């Protein structure tokens, strides 16, 4: 870290209940990604408390953090972050490898989740043989594969065109319908409208936190 510290978040106080689909909005520099990273235990807050599923998350060493990330959280990134020399199914199976699951079992499970995002025929394809939307769906399957309590998505549609974005959102909504808690960072209003609650950040503080009428992505496709 540089010597100049920058306070990005200045007093955030909010709760997410199980099964919610929340979007965090704000212009760049508003602290939305930092918030998500703290939630994802990729970063740690200087002060304040964070409780996940009644577990206080603080002063984690690397080992415990890795363990929690593996068990509680699934990540979806703007740039997909698939491992490019592994096939789609192997990518999805990776978090289960770190859970210590046997290879046969995790491949079966990975195939199940690939099927769920509609990519069964592409299971053996390499990431560079997939379109952007397909890559993001593989990434979502991977995030789901560890059966996390919370799915954290950082600009999941940032690198996709509108049509593909809506397809991905349709998938995310479907997962949410099954009861999974999902947090999405985005700066696109149409994407935010497809969630159930919008948290607006500006300069590190929440300026607005309201529930919205969810727009189903399927109506746009």
């Amino acid at each position, binding site marked *: 870290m540089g010597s100049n510290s920058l306070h990005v978040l200045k007093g955030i106080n909010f709760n997410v209940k199980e099964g919610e689909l929340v979007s965090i909005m704000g212009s760049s520099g508003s602290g939305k990604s930092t918030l998500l990273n703290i939630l994802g235990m990729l970063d740690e807050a200087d002060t304040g408390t964070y409780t996940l599923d009644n577990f206080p998350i603080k002063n984690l060493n690397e080992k415990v953090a890795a363990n929690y990330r593996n068990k509680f959280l699934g990540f979806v990134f703007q740039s997909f*972050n698939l491992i490019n*020399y592994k096939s789609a199914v192997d990518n999805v199976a990776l978090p289960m490898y770190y859970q210590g699951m046997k290879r046969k079992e995790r491949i079966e499970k990975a195939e199940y989740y690939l099927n769920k995002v509609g990519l069964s025929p592409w299971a053996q394809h390499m990431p560079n043989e997939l379109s952007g939307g397909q890559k993001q769906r593989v990434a979502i399957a991977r995030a789901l594969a560890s059966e996390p309590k919370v799915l954290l998505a950082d600009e999941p549609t940032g690198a996709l065109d509108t049509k593909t974005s809506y397809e991905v959102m349709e998938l995310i909504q479907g997962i949410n319908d099954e009861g999974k808690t999902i947090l999405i960072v985005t700066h696109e209003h149409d994407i935010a409208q497809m969630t159930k609650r919008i948290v607006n950040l500006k300069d590190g503080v929440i300026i607005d936190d309201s529930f919205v009428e969810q727009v189903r992505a399927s109506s746009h496709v």
Partner: protein
Amino acid sequence: MFDIERWQEIFETLSKNKLRTFLTGLSVASGIFILVILLGFGNGIENGVTSQFQSDATNLITVSSGVTTKEYKGLNPGRYIQMKNDNFNKISRQYENQIEHQTTMYALWQAPITYKNETVNYRVRGVMPGHQFIENADISTGRFINQSDFDASKKVAVIGHKMQVDLFKEDDPINKNILISGVNFKVIGVFYDPGGDREEQQAYIPVSTSQKVFNGADNIQYMMFTIKMDDNFDSAVENSKIMSSSIEQKLKEIHTVAPDDISAIRINNTLEEARKIYSLIDTIKAVFWFVGIGTIIAGIVGVGNIMLIIVKERTKEIGVRKALGALPMSIVGMILQESIFVTLFSGLFGLIAGLGLLALVGPQIQSDFIKNPQVNFNIAISTVFILVIAGAAAGFIPAYRAAKIKPIDALRDE
């Protein structure tokens, strides 16, 4: 370490990155390969030269005489200096404590030797009992000339293995009579000589007999002395140097030869020569080791370098893995295990290739100075393990750094 799932991960990674794996392996394998070849030839040269020296004792001083080239005390140059029994006895008495074995020699360069109907023309050397040790002659049957043969000037002969084959065919030569230049001699022994056929083509008789029978009076052609070896090689060389120069001085005094006349009295000191050659071999071996170790260091640096690049290239992947729940130690383990596996595998490959080449080419080499180019297997295998350990150490630093990468930094879009 023996987690099968981990190995599957590693094999998958290695096989999906064939070029990288191949290049890493190549630098390691070629390092070991070159080291093995160099060490093999270093040993080969040593073996070759050592076997050259084995034909004679290495601490041998040989004295011979020739024609004077300088005027001295009113005597003209061009005189032939003839060494006598007396000269030898004097030197022998004076250095009694330093001398191990000694002999004079009065030889016929070629003499007809006959047994029944077979005649050969070979060299006959009149020597003393001590010659057996000077020449490294190995008696296979019978015995060598002994003191009583010498004292009584007996007509006995010890013949070389080659001469035995040529003259006696399958017959047992012991106690048979042969004619040397028409004089009857009894064969008392057969010898082998590490010097080979040329040495085994000759016969030894007592020098006293040789002088009497072949009109030698008390003339001698050569004197040979071996010096008791000191444990310290350098001081042994120093002693033999002092001794040979004082023998030279003494003989020149006796025969009135100019002290700086190098042709009248000639002294050949093999120990001094041996030292030069052994120090040359040591130098060659040191150079080979130096080059070999340099090659291995280059290999290790290569592995370390490639590991650094691998870690750099895989920073994002490591970030992803950590975000998916990989423990820091599993990242270190993964990268280390990969580097150890590659270095070990390719190191062994280079070792086998090098040993194979030596085994294949070694016997084909027809040089006196290279013999059995082989490598001590233990040395070779330990260099492989040193390389593996060094490769692991070289891989550890980047791996440790990789494990320290915060996933958030690794995943940040560039």
